[in-house]
Every structure is written in structure tokens, then in C-alpha cells.
């Protein structure tokens, strides 16, 4: 069992990915066994991986200074270097037409060709400290920053301030019906159907670290609690409580749900009876 720092989990097509201090790993049996995906690179030292995004056979992994890019499910990798100084990648999001990378100090980088070339796209993004990203297929994208939420209606090419300001946004997701869920550091979990101004506070918990959605449900972590919602984020219930903070969350469309506690991945049933 790996014990190094786990930064992020992602679930896609029945497989689970873990971005860790020591690299990127994949499990094909719901987290029971893991294989290191950077083996084809033959690295001498571990390559810290801070985030991962997967769509089909395309995998993007956030590593120091850029992203690792694979179009064949991890069999081969290419390093896509961003501009200098080397940015710290904090978030990645992928749709059919768009790939976006958020960074700790350099704003958002946008790739129009599935992660091959990356350009900084920060017009209107007044806070370059990006903590969360999400994008919809039609080109709408949101960036959660240390000072609030920014919106792009042209695939991340430029950004506008939203009315959701003054609080760090840690997590973002669209529900299956296109409702935007926004998890904050100190102001709880908010939802907006219009994605513009109809913000509703959905949870009493102030700190929402992660959000993950499936076709039928949405999940969020509030420090030591796992929350779930089956009505597009209108109401949330505490599903589990733990002794230690939850550091990562991933939900799969096919049912399973994974969380990380003390850098260890645990499988949960989404709605236990």
C-alpha cells in the first residue's frame, strides 16, 4: 500500500486514478490493486503529480512545470512544458473540445488541441491563484480562485468576475442537469442553475474541499464528513463521518465512490441502506 501524499483521485470508464507525490497510479479493480503509470518513462526519481483528468484514452497529469499527456491510456507519455517560470498545476479539466489547466500563481492555461499545446489565457482573471476548474461541453468554464469565482463563456479564452467573490473557491462541478456547484473555504456549498446570479446556499458546513458528481447524485467532502445529494445539490445529507480529514474524492457513474483518508484510498457505497 502506498503511503506518500495523495493529491487527487479521478474515476473514468470503470478505472480509478490517483495523483500522488510519487507519481500517477491506476486501479482497474476499484482500488484494490494499483499500477504505476509512469513506468514507460523510466524515471530515476518520482515525479510528483498534483492532479489528473481523464477522458477515454486521453490522460492529462499535472506535474511540475506542465502536464504529462497520453493519448493511449498511459502507454506512452509526452511532457507539455508551460511557460517559464515553471507553474504549479492545481487543477485540470477536460471536455470533448477543451482542456484547461489551473495553476497556483499563473492563472489558467488553455489547450485547443486536447492537451498538446498550451497557452496562458488570463484576460479578466484578476486572481491568478486558481484552486478549482470545471468546464461544460458548450464552452462554458469556471475557475475557482483564492478570491472568488470567475466565468468564461468562450472556452477559457477570457474571464469575467462573477458575483461570487471574496471567498476562496476550493471545488467546482456541474451536475448532470447543468447546475453549478461551488464549494468554498469558509462559506459553504452553493448552487446556481443559471450559473450567473441565482446562488443558493445548500449546506451548513463552511468548508467544502471536494465535489464529485455522477448521473444521479452529487457528493462533497466537508473536512471529516462525506455529504451526498440526490436532487441536483438542493439538499445534502451527511452520509459518513470520519476521524481524519478527507483529502480526495472521486465518484464513478457506475456506482462506486472513493475517498482518501491519511493518503489511503477507501471504497464506499454511495448510498448504503
Amino acid at each position, binding site marked *: 500500500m502506498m503511503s506518500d501524499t495523495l493529491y487527487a483521485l479521478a474515476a473514468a470508464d470503470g478505472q480509478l486514478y490517483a495523483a500522488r507525490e510519487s507519481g500517477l497510479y491506476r486501479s482497474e479493480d476499484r482500488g484494490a490493486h494499483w499500477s504505476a503509470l509512469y513506468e514507460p518513462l523510466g524515471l530515476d526519481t518520482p515525479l510528483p503529480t498534483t492532479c489528473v483528468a481523464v477522458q477515454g484514452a486521453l490522460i492529462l497529469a499535472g506535474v511540475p512545470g506542465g502536464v504529462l499527456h497520453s493519448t493511449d491510456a498511459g502507454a506512452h507519455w509526452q511532457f507539455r512544458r508551460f*511557460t*517559464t*517560470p515553471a507553474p504549479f498545476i492545481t487543477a485540470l479539466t477536460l471536455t470533448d473540445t477543451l482542456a484547461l489547466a489551473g495553476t497556483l*500563481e*499563473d*492563472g489558467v492555461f488553455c489547450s485547443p488541441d486536447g492537451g498538446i499545446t498550451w*497557452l*496562458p*489565457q*488570463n*484576460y*479578466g*482573471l*484578476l*486572481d*491568478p*491563484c486558481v484552486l478549482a476548474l470545471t468546464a461544460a461541453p458548450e464552452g462554458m468554464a469556471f475557475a475557482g*480562485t*483564492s*478570491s*472568488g469565482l470567475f466565468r468564461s463563456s*468562450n472556452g477559457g*479564452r*477570457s474571464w*469575467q*468576475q462573477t458575483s461570487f*467573490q*471574496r471567498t476562496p473557491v476550493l471545488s467546482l462541478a456541474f451536475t448532470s442537469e447543468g447546475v453549478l456547484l461551488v464549494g468554498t473555504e469558509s462559506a459553504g456549498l452553493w448552487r446556481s442553475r443559471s450559473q450567473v446570479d441565482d446562488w443558493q446556499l445548500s449546506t451548513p458546513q463552511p468548508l467544502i474541499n471536494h465535489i464529485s458528481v455522477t448521473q444521479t447524485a452529487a457528493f462533497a467532502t466537508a473536512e471529516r464528513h462525506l455529504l451526498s445529494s440526490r436532487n441536483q445539490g438542493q439538499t445534502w445529507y451527511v452520509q459518513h463521518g470520519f476521524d481524519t480529514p478527507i483529502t480526495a474524492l472521486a465518484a464513478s457513474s457506475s456506482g462506486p465512490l472513493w475517498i482518501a483518508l491519511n493518503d489511503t484510498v477507501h471504497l464506499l457505497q454511495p448510498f448504503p441502506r
Partner: protein
Amino acid sequence: MTRVVFQPQTYEALKRGIHQVVEPVRMTLGPLPRVVAFSSSFDGEAPELLDKGSVIARRITQLGERDADMGAMLVRDLLWRLHKSVGDATATAAVLFEAVYNAGVHYLAAGGSAMALRQFLNEGAQLVLAQLDTMSVPVIGEAALTRAAAALCSDPALAQPLGEIFAVLDAYGQIDIRSSYSRETRWEYIDGTYWTGGALKAELLPTPRVELQNPAVVMTDFALNEPGDIAPALEAALRAGKRSLLIFAESISASVTAFLLANRDQAGFQAVAVKTPDQFKDRMGTLNDLAALVGGRPFIQATGNSLRRIQSADLGAARSVWVDRDYVGITGGKGDARLRQDQVTRLRTQVTLAEDPDQRERLRSRLGKLMGGSAVLWVGGTTEREIRQRKLLAENAVETMRGIVQFGILPGGGVSLLRCQPALDAWLGSPADISQRMAHRALSDALSAPARAILSNAGCDPSATLARISAEAPDRGYDVLTRQMVNLLDAGIIESTAAYKAAVQGAINTAAAALTIDVLVHTRNPETVLEPG
């Protein structure tokens, strides 16, 4: 010697002057304009052919008749102000101005009250502006913006980049138009913020372009004359763990340059000094913008600060900086994002409230820089003259596009003004004051004047065509190119709402004010040229 001119000569002289400027400008209205030829100041050079109303008006100076020249000056000033503030609709303003003025003079010659007429004209103008607002349509998305740009400049090679640039940068973005000196028109986006005014001393640039990573930033409007002026800043940067420094200053002396070079060569600490952007009253604002972008605090002479007391916390910081002979750019300023957002909000408010076009432009430019990205459009052409003309066209289109992004578009061809007539008729009501009736008549004449001019310039029968237009739906009008009734917005026959409203307001208000002029006073004789023999 002072000369005083009274009525009725005043009205007649002003009318003559106004007509001499408006008539050539009127010819340029619409998609089939006539061209005005200006003789060159140089022997043997071909006349200059112009079809831009504001430029034509600007070139008609010093009419032979001094009384009439004062009327011409009124129009020239109005059109140039519009040109600078909105970049379009100047010919429409000229035509409206003359129509209102001439109709007003008829009434005043019969003994009407100029002040009452002015009041009702201004009231009617507000009504027209409100009607135009109801007709305005927003322009959203790259395709729609490109169509709008194409309608404005009739140059597809310019329209495409303009549409894309405005879809990315919105109304406030920093856009530099430069001559390309090649056939192609190309454009690029620049991440971060840059200012004109590169390195103060070429010796500080070991290569034509220097890039500093994670530098500290000093912001001041001081002239740095002694090494002791800047040494505390270097020490503060070193204490903060920095290995490079960008200095914004008014100037640096040779001894300060030598001091910075010695530190680079001996201690490996690279410092580059650049000119503090902007001049005079804008400089303090720009320094505050810089502080919002990179953090730290600016050292401003007027506040009695001294760089000799600078601390590490006073330094700004950025992810990277680039400097060449002409420009300095900052990417990834490490200022407090909330302060930057506050500064953006403040500037947005100031831009909205600014009445002076120059001040508004300066504020908009500052705002664009704070937004963190810009575009450069390189305008090409086959000859230098063509490049010059296309660059001018692009500059005007950029100003108009800013208004379009913010306020939308109206049906063009003068039709949106025609559609204001019912509201104007309702305003008159009954019984109405005689001055209000005269204002209504003057405005009614004026509302149809631009459409008449467009039709007349295209060789159509204005009266018959206007009658046909009035029977059409509100968004339909006559396309003089295809000679058909069309949906104007679909056909790309549009006006910028912002520019059109500015033209209507400026023309009516200025004409109404001009109607109150009763006396002309010439305080000096025109300069006479003594020629030998």
C-alpha cells in the same frame, strides 16, 4: 480691432459656415459615398481623397469669411469630439446638426424664444435617445462581433481579427494597432500587462530583450540621481530573497546605471530600470494600478516619500518581467487579488462617469492594463499609404467596437431615427407650447435627414423611398447596394448604439446651444501675410 456682429447677420453667417462644413461631410454618408478631394500643401503631390466625415471637417479650416468660420468651428468641434470619443457616426451628427439649426433659425427669425426652443430641443433629444435604447440589440459572440466589424469597416481582413479580439478582450481590453509593413494583417495576444517606455539605459539590457523571473518591483516617480537613492531598494530585495529587480523611475543617472551594472557583474543581481508610465496627473493613478498588480507600495514624490526608507514589504513582485528598448511587460503580478479587483471596480466606475473623451480613454487604457492581457493587431497593405489608411480605419473601428460590445447595435441606414417619429409625435400631444411645436418640427426634419442623405448619395429618390420604408416593419429598411427592402440587422446594415446616441445627443444639444448665439465678436484681425513686391 474688435468687430461685433448682430442679428440678423449672426444667424445667416453661422448658417453659411455650418453649411460649408456639413455639405462635404453629407456626401460621405452611407455605403455609396462621394469623395472629397483636398489639395496638397506640397507642389506636385496628388490631392488627398477623403470620405471620413470627421477628418474632412477637421481639414476645412479658416474659411475666408470670419463670421461664417465661427459656424464652421461649431461643427468641426462637434465632429472631432465625436470622432475621438466614439469613432463613428460623425456624418450623421453633421447632417442632424444642420437640420436642427436651420429649422430653428426659421422659427427664431419669426420672433420665437431661443431659450425655450433650446429647452424643448434638449427634451426631445432625450426622448429620441430613450427610443433608440429600446431598439438596441446586444452583440454577443465572435461571429456576431465579426459581422458588426465587417459592417463598420467593409474590410473582411480587418473584420475577422477585430471580431475575434473583441470576443476575447471585451470592451476594455488593451489593443495596439501597429503598421505591419507587409501585405498580411495578423494579430497576437499578449499574456500579462505591458506599457510603452522600455529600459531607461540601453546598458542595462545585455540582450535586446531581457526577461527576469520572480523579480522584485520598485515603483516610483523619482529621478534616481545617486546610487544611495536605489541602494536601499536593492538591499530590501536581497533581504526578500530576490535575485533581480525591476525599477520604475522617472530617470536614472549615469552613476546609478554604473552602480546597477556593478551589482550585476559582481554580485549577479540583475536590475533593470524603466520609465514610469504616463505623465503628470495620470502617473499617480498608474503607480497605484501597478501596486494593485504586483503588490507593495508606490513611492510618489508628491506624498513626500523617500526611497531611502524602503522596506522589503514595500516591494512588489511578479512571476516574470520582460523589458526591451520600447516596452516593459509584467506577467503574473503577485499583488493582492482583492485589491486588484477593487481597483478594477473603481476604474470601471470612473470610466462610466468620465465626460471628457481624453480622460475616459486614459482611464479605459489603465483599466485594460489591469485586466491582464492585450492584443496587438498588425495592419498590412500593398503600399505605405494603404497601410496608413487601413490602420486609421482599424483605429476608428476599435473605438466603435468598444461601444458595440458595451451597448449593442441599431438598424442602420438612418432607419432607427425614422422609427423614433411616433414617440416624438406622442410627446407633442395637444395643446402644445409654440416653442415645443417648433422643436417637434425641427426634430422631425432632422430625424429623416440622415436617411435622405444616404438615399440621395446612392442616387435614389429620397421622398419615394422614405414613403416605402415607413410602410415596412420597424427592423426593415432599404439597402441601397441591392436596391431592396431588407431586414437591416440581418443584412449587416447597422449602427453602433453608443456612437449613434452620442451623435444624436451631441448634434441636437450643440445645435440648440448654437441657436442661442445672438452676437459674434471678433477680437483680433486675421493674420496677414506680407509678400514681397
